[in-house]
């Protein structure tokens, strides 16, 4: 385990005077108040106890006094503790408010917890596994969980909030000093609970901007939504089945075979369907007819804005969630699969080196007999089914969550990654 700095950020004069409470200082003041009173009370109780036992020892004090009540004493030690605890309550509530009330100008970051890793989504759609924040800027977190309850715990900021599936919770903090601060998972969440660590990296505004720019994310409605709106999906499936038109599954980067209408020699043309190729086919439909299909697709030259076209291409290229994997290229690669497996938390349960964690190791998994009820061998279809609904495919309860949101491209990436880790029996 690495050891990010745990130290509390120094209290820095706020840039928004009067507006912004320093939550850490407020909580620490309550700690000090309660510990101070407690230490005094403990000292009082223990000293009195020890003193009485010595002073009124039977040898020294053979005849006990005979009294069993004293109204004033009882009033005093009822009223005094009451006042003390009410003071503590108020101080505690006050510091709680400081932890809860996020400043209006806070930077909003979405947090998704899952077994057993964290995913942070920044404005603009960029994702990362560690929380990068600009120093001095209040950060508001909106947190939820994909599977079970986890807890986001950043001791340096006295911050802890549970992440509950189906619910969004909120918290805020402000890092006043550059540095790395540990994030723990505080709610027990199973096997790798103790390893569900991450860090808050507080960096300068410039560095933060650079970090965000590293991998610009798409904005606006997804290409899939556009295709749905324009009716593309009525004829083209995304899952590999052929219908009126050819499927769009894996279309990006493939080579299409087209017939040129009107040409006497029925000559075929081949076209690599990269970005330019796809644009050509979609916009100049009259000249591009896919071999083996009826020429019924309308031209879209006057129906799609350049932006919408780009979104469609982007979708066909990267899939829906591709931006979270970072820089997908034209075709799926095992490396993308590995990144994806890490980002989705697969590697929390499945090792890549043959060691057994919760689930079977990915190493040499392909071709191995599975632990499903029907003892099926792990092949591409099996993995696809497991990703959609683990319990159904295994025929028994499983702690593995389903991943219905993965795109086809992503599933292909995962499969390539699995295959790159060798097949059962050792042959690569």
């Amino acid at each position, binding site marked *: 385990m690495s050891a990010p700095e745990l130290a509390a950020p120094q209290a820095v004069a706020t840039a928004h005077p009067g507006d912004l409470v320093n939550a850490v200082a407020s909580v620490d003041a309550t700690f000090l108040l*309660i510990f101070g009173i407690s230490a005094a009370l403990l000292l009082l109780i223990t000293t009195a*106890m020890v003193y009485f036992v010595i002073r009124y020892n039977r040898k020294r004090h053979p005849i006990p006094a005979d009294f069993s009540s004293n109204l004033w004493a009882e009033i005093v030690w009822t009223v005094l503790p009451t006042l003390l605890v009410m003071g503590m309550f108020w*101080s505690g509530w006050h510091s709680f408010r400081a*932890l809860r009330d996020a400043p209006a100008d806070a930077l909003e970051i979405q947090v998704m917890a899952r077994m057993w890793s964290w995913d942070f989504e920044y404005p603009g759609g960029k994702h990362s596994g560690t929380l990068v924040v600009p120093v001095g800027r209040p950060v508001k977190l909106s947190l939820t969980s994909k599977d079970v309850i986890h807890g986001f715990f950043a001791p340096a900021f*006295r*911050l802890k909030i*549970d992440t509950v*599936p189906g619910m969004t919770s909120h918290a805020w903090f402000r890092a006043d000093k550059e540095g790395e601060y540990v994030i723990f998972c505080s709610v027990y969440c*199973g096997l790798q609970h103790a390893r569900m660590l991450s860090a808050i990296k507080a960096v300068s505004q410039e560095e933060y901007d650079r970090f965000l720019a590293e991998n610009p994310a798409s904005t606006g409605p997804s290409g899939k939504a556009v295709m749905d709106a324009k009716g593309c999906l009525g004829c083209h499936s995304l899952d590999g089945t052929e219908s009126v038109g050819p499927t769009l599954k894996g279309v990006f980067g493939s080579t299409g075979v087209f017939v040129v209408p009107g040409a006497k020699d029925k000559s075929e043309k081949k076209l690599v369907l990269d970005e330019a190729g796809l644009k050509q086919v979609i916009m100049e439909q009259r000249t591009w007819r896919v071999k083996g299909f009826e020429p019924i697709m309308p031209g879209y030259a006057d129906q799609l804005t350049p932006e919408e076209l780009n979104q469609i291409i982007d979708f066909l290229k990267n899939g829906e969630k591709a931006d979270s994997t970072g820089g997908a290229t034209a075709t799926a690669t095992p490396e993308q699969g590995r990144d994806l497996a890490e980002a989705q938390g697969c590697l929390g349960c499945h090792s890549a080196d043959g060691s057994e964690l919760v689930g079977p190791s990915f190493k040499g998994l392909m071709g191995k007999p599975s632990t499903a009820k029907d003892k099926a061998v792990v092949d591409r279809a099996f993995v696809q089914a497991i990703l959609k609904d683990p319990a159904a495919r295994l025929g028994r309860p499983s702690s593995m969550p389903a991943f219905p949101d993965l795109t086809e491209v992503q599933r292909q990436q995962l499969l390539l990654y699995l295959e790159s880790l060798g097949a059962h029996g050792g042959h690569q």
Partner: protein
Amino acid sequence: MDQTDHQSDDLTTRPFFGPKGSGGPGDKGLGPASWLFSTDHKRIGLLYLGLIGLMFIAALALGLILRLKLMTPGSTLLSPQEYNAMFTLHGVIMVFLVVIPSIPASFGNIFLPLHIGANDVSFPRLNNFSWWLYVTGMVLAITSIFTGSGAPDTGWTFYVPFSERTTTNVSLAVIAVFILGFSSILTGLNFITTVHRLRAPGMTWKKLPLFVWSLYATGWIQVLATPILGITALLIFAERVLHLGLFDAARGGDPLLYQHLFWIYSHPAVYIMILPAMGVISEIIPVFARKPIFGYNMIAFSSLAIAFAGSLVWAHHMFTSGMSDTAVLIFSFLTFVVAIPSAIKVFNWLSTLYQGSISLDPPLLYALGFIFMFSIGGLTGLVLGSAGTDIHVHDTYFVVAHFHYVIFGGTGLGMFAAMHFWFPKVFGRMYDHGRAAWAFWLVILGMNVLYFPMFIMGLQGMPRRYYDYLPQYGPMQMVSTWGSWLLAVGLGLMFWNLYRGSRYGPAATKNPWGGATLEWTLPTPLPHEAFEGDPSAPEPYDFKGVNPDG
């Protein structure tokens, strides 16, 4: 005591754990059935004591292994899955099989009827049935470890959705908890009825020993709160088997609903654990100070106040859960209100010592240990009740330390104090006082070395239930493990001393400490039948004319 007299009135002199008649052939007073199906509250109390002791040692061993694993960072000794199963079992066994039944089921069963001048509880057969439910729950809990697809790994809190998703043997474990809940409910019901119906003539409410008051308050919590635990355990079972979706957000359920249900029982359960121990302390301190208990009314009333107000604070376990801030405000406030009656009790005990004539015998030593440890546990509880500070230390070692100070340092030492106090009356022999004192100092030192570093680690952010930890926590973890060994040695010495005392100790006198409650008027060891006719109700804390006879 005429051993040749075999008349039935012999039952008022022969030891309750011995044969009812002469012990010759045909005497059915000593066989296994005479214990397993006994309706005698004293035998049932001893049966509980034996099993609770056994379970305590088992869960203690688990705790020692956990501490050994945590002595150094990294993957040592246990796999993460084994670790997770082990802390779950440590918690489940300690909470449901040891601490909740501890004092009420053992010493409560034996001494509650005697304290009020009754020969047994109201429903003796139900009492035996409660013990059998305890045995059933215990067997199921142990079975869940070794059967199915692995020992439960949810923690004793069984939080959803994890407890619904994990493939380990949670279903059987929650059924065990369900059954154990009924054992607790029936014991509570029995005690309430007994206190209401079987008090000897003249035994007015204001003449009840404070131990009885504390058990009475506890009984109400057991009867009113435990059914909710039963329902909650069944709901988990239903979720796992029938997939109802009550707690599943994807199907319109709410995971927080589970937490509310769980803590509506499990917070009052903390008072089921601590109130009887407070009752024991209220018995012991006046006897060894030879002075009436200070503020009888306040102590009796504060037991009821704790039982009532303690039922309204459950959500202080949920300040970070994502529930509304208004709920945090209310539950934080109520939590601080509960602190007041506990503080009053401590001040009253101290005032009882003031100007007394104190003999520092082992029972008092353990009782004073209780006050010290409970004070630390209670005062650190203020940090957890305060909303702002709770956010930081919630789910960290700070909570682990707080809980062990209150429950082990409190209820545990209260139980040990009761064992040393009533030992001669139950077994008819006396243990070695010097060894008992040595054991006490080892135990109290061990506890503090074991648990105090956890406060510091918690403040530094060390989360609980972690199989492994960052290197910065290494030194404190190491010290904590050393403490666990000290504690183990101390407990070993204590149990050995008590065992030796029960076998070879010198015969105990009728009233070795000079107690003024009714059990000290009975023969030692306790006979089969306590009272012939109705005893006259004494002033429980009037020591004039009552002296230690040992």
